[in-house]
């Protein structure tokens, strides 16, 4: 019996090795562009990945219907990374095996920091819709559609000071999250420069993110007139309802992570009344582009309303298209040739999208665009510039 087990284990392992044969031989067709996407579509962060996947698919469908990029159709493949660095590298390698030309990903910053080392080696063009940490800019090979975290923190502080919204500020942030702690750190510094006083700075973590009574009580006791929430809307809904329960009514101000708060199913939007958001995108916008995107999204995906992740991804695909047309790349070029050409091209284009007008890119990969401030009034976004 022992021997059988031995032989069995040998068999299993060797068959696994042989299995790698099956996947080998990169399929490269000269007629289509393969664009890969990486993000979490299962697990805690699935909502962001699914939005990105859906948003990108809409853009791909539109572009293909209109004749593709430089006459070539796009094949879009999306792989799950559960928002984990190691799994993201696996996803990247899977996409490479599938003949990916360019990468639109990853969705989360931590995963992006791992994948960017791989794209750096391969000189693969990488445009991330939503990985906003400054760490992903380190190699200068990752281009962002979203703002960097410090950028959001700084503009938020400047907005508060510029509008004279408040003097005493409390911050509630997720110290275990890269996005949230990144914004918080920059905000704190800039708030000091702007003469704002931070009276409470309270953290929570991914493991205890449902009870905010302490954080809110401290903010209330410290007399903060404004609570800065550099977090995602899921927690924000809880914070808003718990603040209402203790009769605490400061101004709540958040960044793009709060976008989506009005579309949380069954959420009492009157709680969000008066919340200010610094976000590049609003599904409520009435401009033609946004309206047609939201409509396409809703009809394709079960009447769900897209959030900024979907919009970032939609823009990302169009940005790839614009840069690819500028660079004049063809699907039969190698990944590295495409990478070099695209990096040069993206720095020369200016793109008007859902998440910003006249976006341009620096050599570092950072995008240059302006966040817009919105205020929630009567369950709708109203410009608060």
């Amino acid at each position, binding site marked *: 019996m022992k021997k059988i087990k031995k032989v069995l284990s040998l068999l299993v392992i060797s068959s696994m090795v042989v299995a790698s044969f099956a996947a080998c031989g990169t399929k490269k067709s000269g007629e289509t562009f393969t664009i890969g996407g990486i993000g979490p*579509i299962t697990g805690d962060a699935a909502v962001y990945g*699914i939005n990105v996947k859906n948003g990108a698919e809409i853009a791909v469908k539109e572009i293909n219907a209109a004749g593709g990029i430089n006459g070539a159709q796009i094949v879009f493949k999306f792989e799950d990374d559960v928002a984990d660095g190691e799994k993201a590298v696996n996803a990247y390698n899977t996409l490479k095996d599938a003949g990916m030309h360019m990468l639109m990903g990853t969705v989360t910053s931590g995963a992006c920091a791992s994948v960017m080392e791989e794209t750096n080696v391969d000189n693969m063009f990488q445009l991330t819709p939503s990985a906003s940490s400054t760490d992903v800019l380190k190699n200068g090979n990752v281009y962002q559609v979203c703002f960097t975290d410090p950028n959001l923190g700084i503009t938020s502080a400047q907005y508060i000071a510029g509008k004279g919204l408040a003097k005493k500020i409390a911050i509630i942030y997720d110290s275990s999250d890269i996005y949230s702690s990144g914004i918080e750190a920059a905000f704190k510094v800039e708030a000091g420069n702007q003469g704002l006083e931070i009276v409470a700075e309270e953290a*929570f973590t991914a*493991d205890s993110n449902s*009870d905010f009574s302490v954080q809110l*009580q401290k903010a209330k006791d410290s007399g903060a007139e404004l609570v800065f929430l550099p977090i995602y809307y*899921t927690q924000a809904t809880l914070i808003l*309802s718990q603040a209402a329960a203790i009769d605490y009514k400061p101004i709540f101000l958040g960044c793009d992570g709060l976008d989506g708060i009005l579309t*949380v199913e*069954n959420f009492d939007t009157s709680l969000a009344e008066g919340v200010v958001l610094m976000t590049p995108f609003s599904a409520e916008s009435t401009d033609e582009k946004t309206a047609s995107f939201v409509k396409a999204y809703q009809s394709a995906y079960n009447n769900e309303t897209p959030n900024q992740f979907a919009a970032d991804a939609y823009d990302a695909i169009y940005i790839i298209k614009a840069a690819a047309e500028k660079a004049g790349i063809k699907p039969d070029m190698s990944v590295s040739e495409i990478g070099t050409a695209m990096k040069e091209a993206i720095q020369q284009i200016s793109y008007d999208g859902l998440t910003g007008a006249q976006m341009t890119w620096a050599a570092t990969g950072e995008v240059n665009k302006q966040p817009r401030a919105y205020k929630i009034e009567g369950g709708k976004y109203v410009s608060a510039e």
Partner: protein
Amino acid sequence: MSFISYLIKGISLGSVYSMIALGYTMVYGIAKMLNFAHGDVIMVGGYIIFIVMSVSGLNPIVGVLLAIILCTLLGITIERVAYKPLRKASSLAVLITAIGVSYLLQNVALLIFGADTKSFSSVIKLPALKLAGGALTISGETLVTIPLCLIIMVALNIFIKKTKTGRSMIAVSEDKDASVLMGINVNKTIAITFAIGSALAAVASALLFSSYPSLSSTSGAMPGIKAFVAAVFGGIGSIPGAMIGGILLGVIQILSSAYISSQLSDAIVFFILILVLLVKPTGILGKVMHEKV
């Protein structure tokens, strides 16, 4: 004053943990298995109530009752399909299967309900109690949770000590083989235990999501683990222990994040847990284990 207010918040958080821990400790006490899927049964219960209330617009009571029925059925099914075949296997094998069931429930929920968070409307319509001119607020949820916890705790104790089924549960937990000889149907007893545990999970889901109304496919996991910790705190297998453990856990979590560090509150909670177990190796109300040679 702020201390009292934090204490009240700790108790309300803790009462929710207690509620979940009751189900954990019940199953552990009888079946001697860590049912890691308990938290996910709570998540399923939450979705059932959510659908009944917001989609069909029925009375919350109907939702909770339906959740209790469906969760009980789910619990029995899980027990029948996944755990019963492993009755004679090592407890580790059952633990891993429970984890498999937990993944399964999470992913099925993700596919059915999508990844978007749903906002749960409270099933408890009781207004908050305001004391000392509004400085102290006790939410309606807390006002219901704590007495309900106590009632369930007492009822469970009576059920186990006074009824035939309850006593056969004790027998099964003491010695499975001997209880077979005494004419107890072990399989039936364990199935009933799971049914009760899952029904408690449904009640817990109503209270958990009423207090923290954010519902997604993974929102049962963390409260599940915390409640498991609470159950161990109080002495796993002990029903009053689960209640005390839950309340203590909530109070410690709130007080440590209020007075020490909100970033490190998880670490502090777990550190205190380790200290408690060092002093009382079987939890606060746990039975002292006698080893036979």
